[in-house]
């Protein structure tokens, strides 16, 4: 560490953002209408999780890490359904990302494969994804 960043670390004000305590989860909804195979699904879910992580705020990320980085994979019915879930999540102020596939294998390019919602409080997630089945 350089001397300047060391001094900065000592003197900088703490990060203000505050997130409520509780159980944080990341919900990953897979587009089940695409009939992807197991390995493909795993890779797409990986995309979704990484995007959600990189898009998330540091405080939220910390809270999620301390709940053990919990992830749940759920079944969605198709493009319409996934987009609807994403919209609903955003309207409730939850972070949401969508993944479109480059289409090198198995499915056409640009297919909507994943919507990842969170990390967010388990209770908040349940209002949006509560009635979805586990993958």
């Amino acid at each position: 560490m350089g001397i300047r960043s060391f001094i900065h670390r000592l003197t900088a004000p703490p990060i203000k953002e505050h997130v409520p305590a509780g159980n944080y989860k990341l919900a990953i909804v897979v587009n089940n209408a695409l009939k992807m195979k197991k390995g493909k699904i795993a890779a797409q879910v990986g995309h979704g999780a990484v995007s959600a992580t990189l898009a998330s705020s540091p405080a939220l990320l910390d809270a999620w890490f301390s709940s053990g980085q919990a992830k749940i994979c759920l079944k969605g019915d198709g493009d319409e359904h996934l987009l609807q879930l994403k919209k609903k999540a955003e309207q409730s102020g939850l972070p949401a990302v969508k993944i479109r596939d480059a289409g090198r294998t198995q499915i056409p390019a640009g297919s909507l494969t994943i919507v990842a919602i969170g990390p967010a409080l388990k209770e908040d997630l349940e209002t949006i994804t509560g009635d979805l089945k586990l993958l």
Partner: protein
Amino acid sequence: MSATDDGPTMVLVTRADLTLSTGKLAAQCAHAAVDCALVAKRSASRLFERWKAGGARKIVLQCDTLEEMKRLYGAAQKANLVTSMIKDAGHTEIPSGTITVIGIGPSPRRSMEALTGELKLVR
């Protein structure tokens, strides 16, 4: 893997000897992918940016046994690649502490090929 394209790739290696549901397998792979991505962002940021710009490519492979997986993990560490080993907390399906997935990279395809060229894709 096509030899013409040397963009950075992340490889997630799963175990063929564990029977996991699709959702479970996917979640475990996601753990490894996030872990590797965050480590790479800190320790190999230029490679990380290149990987992200190239579509954050990920490949899911399988090896036959835990021993093979550990050997691969050791070899990847020796080659100075970003690695991550995921042990399941065991809330569901399998006993706590089971090693489920290792993540390697992002790293250029050529260096990855030497390590994981023999492994099969997960179907």
